[in-house]
């Protein structure tokens, strides 16, 4: 029906606690890598999508200052946002801008600098990320929302805190290998199960420190192109085979269940349908593990495990690199850190490198299809993207 769209360049900055520069300078780091990766000229870029979670730094309308800094005028640029899945939304828009014929090459920039706000300013903004009328006045936080999901999952399926801890142990196994990750230390099950340790201390019961990813500063950059351009530009283009998106009510009062994310499930359904494949065809995946429970729910929402059997997958190590369906073998958000707007782009970059066979120490064997699962808010915005070779 519409034009085939490929990814021809990927880049990511180091994810760090505190980037010593402005957003435009941080974005440049991943821009440079993506430009060098693609080998294209700046003037080949027809449009730029700039993605972040809003209000974590002080520059309003960042698309303008970033396009200027990267020398991307007079090409159009705009800002797109779905909280933590902003750059997956950006990729979907880039896909549509190319598939529609409006553009041939579109760049997707994701970024976040949270370190320049004071902790109080940052918390105040997080409060206003929920529904400011009906949720924020209760003193809600992301860990607590996900903890409610963990509680519901445990009640329905018998999932245990140990199961969740095993996901963090896996993340740390690979995070140690990722030079761009913010957290590169090993983590043991004992550490997370010990309430007196930093990793075991309760944050929002039943989630502990080790169940939560850390804030970070970082940027990511993707370059997508029409089939014709992709074949001309890229040694080994990676194709967007399926790209699904869905939403759920912000307020949990509008949800029909807490033991899974309906928006993720719906986005996956769309992506599989568009790609013409099933979960069994996925060779490597990046899922949105902002909290350990989020990865566990992803296993089930994406069809890697049947409902309630996600814990079997991690217990049997089937989501390790050598397993049936390797998940987050770059360390995931739990190890890389979560520079909100940059996260989706970083996930896509990992899958692109895997499909090209350029993933180094974490390379899985001959993958053909890879999947990215990127969630905004608490299952508010669900995005699933399937990439493939041919």
């Amino acid at each position, binding site marked *: 029906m519409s034009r085939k769209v490929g990814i021809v360049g990927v880049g990511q900055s180091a994810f760090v606690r505190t980037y010593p520069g402005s957003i435009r300078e941080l974005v440049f780091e991943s821009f440079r890598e993506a430009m060098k990766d693609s080998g294209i000229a700046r003037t080949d870029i027809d449009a730029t999508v700039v993605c972040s979670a809003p209000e974590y730094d002080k520059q309003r309308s960042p698309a303008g200052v970033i396009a200027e800094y990267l020398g991307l005028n007079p090409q159009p640029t705009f800002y797109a946002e779905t909280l933590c899945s902003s750059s997956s939304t950006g990729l979907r828009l880039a896909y549509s801008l190319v598939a529609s014929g409006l553009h041939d090459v579109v760049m997707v920039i994701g970024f976040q600098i949270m370190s320049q706000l004071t902790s109080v300013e940052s918390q105040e903004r997080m409060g206003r990320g929920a529904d400011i009328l009906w949720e924020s006045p209760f*003193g809600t936080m992301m860990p607590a929302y996900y903890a409610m999901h963990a509680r*519901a999952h445990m009640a329905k399926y018998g999932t245990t805190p140990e199961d969740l801890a095993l996901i963090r142990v896996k993340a740390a196994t690979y995070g140690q290998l990722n030079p761009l990750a913010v957290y590169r230390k090993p983590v043991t099950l004992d550490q997370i199960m010990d309430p007196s340790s930093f990793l075991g201390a309760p944050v929002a*019961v039943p989630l502990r420190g080790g169940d939560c990813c850390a804030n970070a500063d970082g940027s990511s950059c993707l370059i997508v192109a029409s089939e014709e351009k992709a074949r001309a530009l890229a040694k080994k283009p990676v194709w967007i085979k399926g790209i699904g998106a869905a939403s759920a009510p912000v307020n949990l009062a509008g949800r029909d269940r807490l033991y899974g994310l309906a928006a993720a499930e719906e986005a996956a359904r769309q992506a599989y349908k568009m790609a013409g494949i099933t979960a069994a065809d996925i060779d490597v995946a990046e899922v949105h593990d902002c909290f350990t429970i989020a990865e566990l729910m992803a296993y089930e929402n994406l069809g890697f495990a049947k409902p309630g059997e996600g814990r079997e997958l991690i217990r049997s190590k089937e989501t390790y690199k050598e397993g049936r369906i390797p998940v987050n073998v770059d360390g995931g958000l739990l190890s890389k850190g979560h520079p909100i707007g940059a996260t989706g782009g970083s996930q896509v970059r990992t899958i692109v490198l895997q499909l090209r066979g350029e993933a180094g120490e974490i390379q899985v064997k001959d993958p053909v299809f890879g999947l990215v699962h990127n969630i905004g808010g608490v299952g508010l915005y669900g995005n699933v993207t399937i990439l493939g070779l041919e």
Partner: protein
Amino acid sequence: MAKNELDTRFTEFGTVSFAAVTRVNDFIGHLENGKLMGTRCVKCGKTFFPPRAQCCECLSAEIEWFEVAGEGKLVGYSTLQYAPTGFTEEVPYTIALVDYGDYKVFGRIDASVPEADLAVGMTLKAAVSRTSNGRLTYVFKRA
């Protein structure tokens, strides 16, 4: 309507207020009268909690209030050990979702219910209450 005539009662809701103005400000009046209320579309009968001033089902803006009464079932909950700015003195507290059948209600568990007594599926009832800083809110108590 001039700015100073705005009905800003909604600033009285919750430990910290983030929003001043909605078209369902009467929610606050009902809380003051001891009632937790949602809205129902007069035209098509759809119920809304949180309350809404307009109905997305039939596009009508004619709504009536109903009371959140009876018992609901606990769907999920979590006790916070850390809290956002403005809430830190209340830690620990427990947020929860309670299912009333036709609608669900998100809020806090009353401090009178120990965390150890909570379990998914148990019955709870909502009650109008005051926050630790004396402002209007509602909580879930033992049914």
